[in-house]
């Protein structure tokens, strides 16, 4: 009794740990099972498959391009939401959250009604020689639509946490609002902004429903996995899935570490 902490050994903690263990098992078991069902030679063979390589590259660059492109517009919006009061601010926040709540398949259909050759935007784009359908542009659109709320919300929280005192001080030192935004607000909110961009990128990479509707081809990896699964069965899909999961995790962990490292240098 005396050698252990009164705080650590109570039965509530044990129960919590048991239930928590079940949740963790629920997450780990399927992933472990998936990974164990692929042999290394299978994985190596899949990694050498041109179609797989092409789809992974496509998925990586489209999701990153969508994130960077959206960031340019979304970060100033997040600043506005964090700093200014304006009428219907609640409505604007609600609209930003819509893509999170709307089923991805429906989101894909919604995008399709705008960019299909029959729709206004699609026709206009067609005239200047851009086609959304069957183009990586359509993939990016779908990815951006479902994932931009993650970036905006994270950046907004980041800006809200920057002390206004610092911005006021910078203004009083003669810096104009643009300079204050770029040299004070953005650097101080860099961590949550980058973390939001990583979230947005990860979310875009894993998107399936919306992309499937609007751009079955060029084939991003989730679509490829689905196609192989429905055409050839579990066996042929799972090695691609394992490879893709590995790529996602490696990128995610590396980006997180880079972002974390930046924090240590800064604060």
């Amino acid at each position, binding site marked *: 009794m005396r050698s252990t902490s009164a705080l650590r050994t109570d039965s509530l903690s044990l129960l919590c740990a048991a239930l928590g263990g079940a949740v963790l098992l629920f997450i780990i078991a399927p992933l472990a099972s998936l990974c164990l069902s692929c042999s290394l030679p299978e994985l190596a063979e899949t990694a050498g498959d041109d179609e797989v390589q092409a789809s992974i590259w496509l998925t990586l660059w489209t999701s990153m391009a969508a994130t960077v492109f959206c960031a340019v517009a979304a970060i100033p919006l997040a600043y506005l939401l964090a700093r200014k009061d304006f009428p219907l601010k609640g409505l604007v926040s609600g609209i930003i959250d819509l893509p999170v709540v709307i089923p991805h398949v429906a989101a894909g259909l919604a995008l399709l009604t705008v960019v299909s050759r029959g729709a206004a935007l699609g026709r206009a784009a067609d005239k200047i020689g851009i086609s959304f359908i069957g183009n990586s542009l359509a993939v990016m659109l779908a990815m951006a639509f479902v994932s931009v709320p993650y970036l905006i919300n994270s950046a907004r929280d980041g800006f809200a946490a920057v*002390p206004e*005192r*610092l911005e*006021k*001080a*910078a*203004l*009083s*030192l*003669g*810096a*104009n*609002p643009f*300079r204050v935004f770029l*040299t*004070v607000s953005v*650097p*101080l909110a860099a961590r949550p902004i980058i973390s939001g961009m990583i979230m947005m990128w990860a979310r875009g990479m894993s998107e399936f429903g919306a992309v499937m509707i609007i751009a079955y081809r060029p084939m991003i990896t989730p679509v490829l996995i689905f196609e192989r699964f429905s055409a050839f069965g579990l066996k042929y899909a799972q090695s691609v899935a394992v490879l893709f999961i590995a790529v996602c995790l490696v990128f995610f962990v590396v980006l997180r570490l880079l972002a974390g490292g930046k924090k240590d240098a*800064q*604060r």
Partner: protein
Amino acid sequence: MLSVRQICKTYPGFGIKDVSFEVQQCEYFVLLGPTGAGKSVMLEIIAGLTRPDSGSVLLDGRDITGEKIQNRRISLVFQSSALFPHMSVYENVAYPLRWCGRTRSQIDQRVAKLADDFDFSHLLEARPQTLSGGESQRVSLARAVASEPRCLLLDEPLSSLDASSRCEIRSLLRNISANGQLILHVTHDYTEAVSLSTHIAVMEDARIAQIGTVEEIFQHPQSQFIARFVGIRNFFKGRLKAPEAGGTSLRHFATDGLSFSVLTDRPAGQGSVMVRSEDVTITNAASPTSARNNFAGPIVDIAPIGGGVEVIVDIGHGKSLEIAAIITNEAVSALELRLGKKVWVTFKAAAAIFIEG
């Protein structure tokens, strides 16, 4: 010259009403008042962070009420450090110097000069988070001065510092002011006002209650509120003399022909001595006492105040020099005190508080 004219600003359940004052070049102007009197709102209006409902702010004759903050040339220094945490001390001080056509070496020179003046040359590479409170405030002041503001606004710049840093920053502020910088300093602490200001405006309940020099405010408060808020009626400007050989801490402070004994280890120089009225004793005749300050003079006023009687004795030689004592009703009758009677006032050297400035 900073001129504030009939500023009004109403918030729900709070506001400031018809505030006007003028700060001349080279003045060190202190806006003194209790928390919630509206001092900070006034400061935000002058800085351009808040717009007044009516009234105007003029800087050197130009109406800047609607001017953008960044074009006002008014620098702010806050109570807690507002140094940019993602920049080094050097970059912080250089911040107002960049983007206005200066060359790299001009900026370097200016920062080096400021770091030297404000005594943080050894900290230029440091991160603001690693600085002590006093160091942070020195860098903040240097950064504010670097932008060459027309007016320096200080928002309780000493409140979060310990006693020794406070002393150090006070003397820095005196130097800045001596260089001709127009300063508006907001505080709730009357010792800061005594130590630094040339002029004081006392704010009470969203209005200006009194404006004047330190002597005017302390010796002739125009309302009960001001008298209570500034706290000390017995206030004397003068000069602290150098310690006599022999190593005692008892020192002499000369004011208008009189000399007080005070206990202090501050260096000799200009300053003020304050004595609480509660610490002053009145006797009818001089007798040897351990109290080092004994002065004779006629009673010029006897007024009852909450819980006692305030007796004012003029102890000046030729020129009037009033000192107030708060004593009990019983003492007044026991000593048969009346207007004009010559009495002795006595207070201990420990009761005389010396403040530099």
